[in-house]
């Protein structure tokens, strides 16, 4: 009996320690990046770093505005494209589709979720970039096709599965009785969906969108491969952009040879982490609450 008890309490201790270690890891991530970014924070104020656009590593001046603008532009464009398509798909799958269709489509969406980002990138280079180039020529914006628009399209396809699967979970949580009551009152199916289902599921669906936004912000490889990577604030859809993750990925090679460059890149990582975490944490909070309320 003593052996059994010992084993039980020892295993419990180990598990608790590991669970604490996870919290420690999250703290270490933020603190570590902050410590490494301090040299650049010491020479330039936060506002100067975030709101100026001069990027001169050799002179030790770092302005992150083009990169932040690039991230915001490409992510917003992706959400603009992805949100209507994903929400409509999720609604169709959860409110209209037969079980058979749902069983057919679910693996396809899981497949999309499983595809690595490099593959999205290579698809973007093969298919999207030439198409955008053509479109640019038609619209009077001659360019290479490596642009904000190409990045936005590829990123939109990448977040489809996330929005669809989270929204479907949320929609499944809307009680059946609510739908039946609306239908019994003579509402059409779309009216039921529009005024009852969406209304009840709204917080969760918004959380799904915010979650996808934060996921899209941090996406590196696919965007890096199609977005053109020119450090300027973009003015049209056909301008190249250089988002924050691409900045980190593109410059790691030189970062040890120029003073304070590594600190600047670590600051970029910290900035990215903070942006993503703010969105992510608020979405998770809503989702936890939404799911709890309906269970």
């Amino acid at each position, binding site marked *: 009996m003593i052996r059994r008890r010992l084993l039980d309490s020892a295993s419990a201790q180990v598990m608790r320690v590991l669970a604490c270690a996870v919290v420690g890891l999250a703290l270490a991530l933020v603190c570590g990046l902050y410590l490494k970014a301090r040299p650049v924070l010491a020479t330039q104020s936060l506002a100067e770093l975030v709101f100026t656009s001069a990027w001169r590593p050799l002179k030790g001046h770092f302005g992150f505005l083009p990169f932040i603008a690039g991230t915001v532009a490409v992510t917003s464009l992706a959400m603009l494209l992805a949100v209507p398509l994903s929400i409509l798909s999720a609604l169709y799958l959860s409110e209209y589709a037969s079980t058979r269709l749902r069983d057919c489509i679910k693996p396809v*969406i899981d497949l999309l979720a499983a*595809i690595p980002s490099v593959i999205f990138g290579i698809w973007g280079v093969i298919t999207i970039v030439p198409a955008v180039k053509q479109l640019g020529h038609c619209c009077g914006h001659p360019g290479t096709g490596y642009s904000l628009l190409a990045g936005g399209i590829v990123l939109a396809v990448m977040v489809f599965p996330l929005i669809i699967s989270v929204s479907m979970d949320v929609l499944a949580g809307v009680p059946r009785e609510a739908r039946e009551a609306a239908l019994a009152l003579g509402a059409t199916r779309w009216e039921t969906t529009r005024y009852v289902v969406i209304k009840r599921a709204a917080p969760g669906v918004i959380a799904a969108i915010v979650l996808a936004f934060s996921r899209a912000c941090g996406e590196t490889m696919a965007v890096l491969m199609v977005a053109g990577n020119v450090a300027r604030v973009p003015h049209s859809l056909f301008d190249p952009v250089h988002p924050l993750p691409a900045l980190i990925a593109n410059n790691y090679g030189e970062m040890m040879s120029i003073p304070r460059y590594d600190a600047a890149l670590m600051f970029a990582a910290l900035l990215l982490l903070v942006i993503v975490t703010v969105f*992510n944490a608020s979405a998770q909070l809503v989702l936890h609450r939404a799911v709890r309320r309906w269970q």
Partner: protein
Amino acid sequence: MSRARRVTERAMIVLMQLALACVAGCALLIVGTVLVRGLPALSWEMLTHLPRGGFYLGKSGGILNAIVGSLLLAGCATAAAAVVSLPVAFALQREYVPRTAARIVTIALDILWGTPSIVYGAFGFMLMMLLGVGASLLGGIIALTLLMLPIMVRAMSEVIATAPRDLKETAYALGATRFETMRHVLLRQTLPGLVTAVLLAFGRGIGDAAAVLFTAGYSDRIPRTLTDPAASLPLAIFFQLGTPIAAVQQRAYASACVLLLIVLAVSLLARVLAARARRFTIR
């Protein structure tokens, strides 16, 4: 029913079907494009040879270094992440930690889950500088383990939460300790889900380029020790696509094909194993 309402109903259905067709079409288009471009370029030599001299100029050789490197990186990282994730996922139950503590851990996990892989790459690079290790297999494994950990814990704890409560209570009522209940009852009951979680994380890890970019380096040889740099498939694709030589770009497509097939095989395997093992669980 008025005509306007009927028209709206029809129009919305068509709109939703179009949206769904677009999403599903994109998935099939991506897989189709990569397979159509990659399969013709794929050869036995590519799969079984290391890069030879002039490989990056279009001469002979293969991507065995990247295939083995990727499998090593993702395999070791999956093993390491599983060893940590399993206890953490079980610890989130009510028997082990109070609710407030469980919430704090969950919030930390949510943050880690959302952290972009490039940030893990940068953080892993920082850790390596601290430990005095260069770009190596070990560094890549550390970064990938960090990346996989929250994915695995989240999937595992969801599976554990769905295990019937009665099952646990029955075990406790029979006098089993928490450890025995976990080991002999819960673990069996949740095994299919746990395996799926591990395979899911493996698939995510093997396809991730941003985390290994700084940490694992790249090498034309197969790593012999943990401190050797290791090539990986995503980076092989990225580097090969970046060259202006058409023959090398063809190889990028072929490498993408290999990566895609590995990822699809893993997710299919996860599905099959889960379906098979589900027969032995209690509902």
